[in-house]
């Protein structure tokens, strides 16, 4: 066993795991609000990343582009909910799935049409040196861990300690009762979409220097994000975060140490995880099985 290689892979896994955690959290937030998986979550993040790239291409400094992209993504997320999903709120599951797939391919094609399909490099604000000169983890990986942890902490504080956060939790937990408390449930759902889009934007901008920018960059990432959400339990935001970091580490370590997986078969691990968790513990490690007292 090569311990230094293992440590290296674990740290790198935590770095990408942070991204999976963000995507998983975005997926869980929308799932909690409307009971459907947002298949277009990855494409939304990809589009946001292109917006950031475009802004920087026009000469905007990195952090300005970063903040503007988050704001634009938030507004875009709210708009998608208001224009596309509010009207079909009571429609059956299949209608939602069709709309998600449509959204997926519309956003994907739109990005390809505007920015074409050639692979673009995306800058990192953290530099390419190794962090603290240790050679164990790159500065960008360190930055990814820091930013994703910071984002997750902010979200935790928002949901635990603000009135809007409580209103959003109430609206997701029991929409009818929330409405009877005067909470504008429709707007809480829209707000959730906006926040999910903004979180996705951060994830996209952080992972783009690693996977390179192109319209299909988020396909694999979304799959890992789904795996993370399923592992943690779709009803548990905290579980999604733990799931994200676990999936990142498992993916990296297994890809390095299990001979047959290698780089090429790594994505299979995400699918295996999804199947395994659904077979053994369908509600996820931290999810609640739906039990109700009548």
């Amino acid at each position, binding site marked *: 066993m090569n311990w230094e290689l293992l440590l290296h892979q674990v740290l790198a896994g935590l770095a990408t795991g942070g991204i999976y955690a963000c995507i998983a959290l975005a997926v869980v937030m929308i799932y909690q609000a409307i009971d459907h998986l947002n298949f277009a979550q990855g494409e939304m993040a990809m589009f946001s990343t292109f917006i950031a790239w475009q802004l920087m291409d026009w000469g905007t400094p990195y952090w300005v582009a970063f903040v503007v992209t988050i704001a634009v993504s938030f507004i875009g997320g709210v708009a998608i909910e208001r224009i596309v999903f509010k009207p079909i709120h009571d429609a059956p599951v299949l209608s939602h799935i069709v709309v998600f797939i449509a959204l997926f391919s519309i956003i994907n094609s739109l990005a390809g049409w505007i920015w074409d399909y050639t692979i673009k490099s995306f800058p990192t604000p953290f530099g390419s040196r190794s962090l603290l000169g240790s050679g164990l983890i790159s500065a960008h990986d360190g930055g990814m861990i820091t930013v994703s942890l910071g984002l997750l902490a902010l979200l935790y504080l928002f949901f635990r300690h603000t*009135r809007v956060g*409580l*209103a959003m*939790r*109430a609206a997701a*937990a*029991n929409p*009818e*009762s*929330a*409405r*009877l*408390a*005067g*909470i*504008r*449930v429709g707007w809480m759902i829209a707000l959730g979409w906006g926040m999910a889009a903004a979180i996705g934007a951060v994830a996209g901008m952080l992972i783009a220097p690693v996977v390179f920018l192109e319209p299909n960059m988020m396909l694999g990432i979304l799959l890992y994000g789904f795996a993370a959400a399923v592992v943690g339990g779709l009803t548990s935001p905290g579980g999604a975060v733990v799931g994200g970091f676990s999936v990142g580490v498992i993916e990296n370590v297994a890809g390095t140490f299990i001979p047959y997986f290698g780089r090429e078969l790594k994505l299979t691990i995400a699918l295996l995880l999804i199947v395994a968790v659904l077979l053994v513990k369908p509600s996820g490690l931290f999810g609640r099985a739906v039990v109700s007292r009548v």
Partner: protein
Amino acid sequence: MTATLLEANALCAFYGATQALFGLDLAVEAGGITTLLGANGAGKTTTLRALSGMVRATGEIRFDGRPIAGRPVEQIVRLGIAHVPQGRGTFVRQTVEENLQIGAMTRRNHSAIAADVERVYGYFPRLKERRRQQAGTLSGGEQQMLAVGRAMMLRPRLMLLDEPSFGLAPLIVQELFGILRNLNRDENVSMLLVEQNASLALDLADHAYLIETGRLVIKGPAHAIRNDETVRRSYLGY
């Protein structure tokens, strides 16, 4: 002659294509307790849901003279109508105190909200003991008290209570109804009470309506209905 706080004329309600109310006329006096009685499926819950905009309804509804029919639920609630729904509407994963905070979500004044939380705890000391507990772990009676407490947090002028006695032990019901009486008297909250337990409701209320399959059968002062033997035998079953 007291003023009318809530008035419904020719109220009809629909679930999809099915009509559940057929032209009901109803009034709740300001400061009073009105009860709506009837058998299972008579349309009691539907009436409350129609009043707070939760089902499709036609007809005229006036609250404090203002027409409110057709408005969204959130808007009607914000006018000061607190609906304590059937099944209590508990936010089971939130704490007791968070449930109360949710009830005050339409208000801005933080110190007044904090004072009202204490006021609710004054009426329901048991909730104070369990303030940090997940609301889903409360007993049925405690959850019903929490539902009333959450409604109080709105500072409502009218409470719509949907079978608050449902599934509770007789002692708990007595305690709860005593508190409702105090709320009505001390906080000047008018009430429209839907009940299966007619004798209990008629003791608390000053006016009563009796409905059957979505239509009004009889209305009048609660004591008159309680003493009307025919009505009692044929509709109230005691």
